[in-house]
């Protein structure tokens, strides 16, 4: 990509992100009452969305060929264990990343 193309792409991404953030405020201006369905969604959506995002992260993991998603599975278990033990964001995420990097760089070396 050329520099103008990179700038254009970044601006498109920035504007699209902004649109998704702005739309609720345009649909429900300060003068309007928020409907019940929107109040309900506000309560339950964050949970469903995070569940979806976790699945999204594994969407490209090959599970029918070696290493059968094992690095992802083991590193995810490490995240769960670290979370249960520490409840600390940095230790949980940092530890999970280190485990994953060791697994794919040293233990499950492809090729």
């Amino acid at each position, binding site marked *: *990509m*050329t520099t103008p193309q*990179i700038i254009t*792409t*970044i*601006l*498109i*991404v*920035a504007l*699209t*992100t*902004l*649109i*998704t*953030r*702005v*739309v*609720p*405020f345009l649909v*429900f201006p*300060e003068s309007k009452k*928020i409907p019940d*369905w*929107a109040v*309900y*969604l*506000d309560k*339950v*959506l*964050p*949970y*469903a*969305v*995070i*569940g*979806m*995002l*976790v*699945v*999204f*992260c594994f*969407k*490209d993991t090959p599970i029918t060929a070696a290493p059968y998603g094992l690095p992802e599975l083991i*590193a*995810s278990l490490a*995240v*769960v264990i670290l*979370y249960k033990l520490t409840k600390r*964001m*940095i230790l*949980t*995420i*940092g530890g*999970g*990343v280190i485990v*994953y*990097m060791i*697994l*794919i*760089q040293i233990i499950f070396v492809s090729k």
Partner: protein
Amino acid sequence: MIKTAFKHAFPKTIPVFFGYLFLGISFGVLMIGVGLDWYWAPVMSLVIFAGSVQFVAVGSLLTAFNPLTAFTLTLAVSARQLFYGLSMLERFKSVNGKKPYLIFALTDETYSLLVAENVPEGADRGWFYFWISALNQSYWILGSTLGAVFGMFLPFNFKGIEFAMTALFLYILLNQWEANADHAPTLIGIGSALLSLAVFGPERMIIPAMIAILIGLFAYRKRRERKTDSARENGGACS
């Protein structure tokens, strides 16, 4: 007024400081790792300011120039943001001109801080929210710049660092799972995504998954209301 709000806001953002520093570094390192110039990291963190979107955008920058793909991919990843604004409609009222920035800077993490924290007594709401948002963005810019600059000098194999995003979402999921006794919304999210992945494949799963989630959540709402109603009729306590 500005100072008081800052004093109250800064301590609340410390967890995000560490989180964004780490994720920002991962992002910067990823950018360098795929061969993009370091300065694009602070530029993107300044004008986009959305973690998952920026990780995905790195992929877009690697392929041939395609504005439509960049648009649809961003929309697919950040569509969930449509719903964040819903719980900020009340909170962002009368914040004296800071509203546009607050809306722009409404990331997952800023969102979670704003809904979790009450505005302290004596602090101006607009400035309090502004400092939380702006501090968070400054951490994100700092982290991504550090990662991008360090990535140039560290002879280190960063393969696998992208797992930081998976780990972050897993961390939030575990957090939510423990904080909320009702696991149905989480399971509806996971189930819809798995179904969508199986039917539509990895490239097109997000939008169908979101539609499935909406259907699932509204179906669940009816069931939940019925349950609540029958609990009331039976005179039992409803949870």
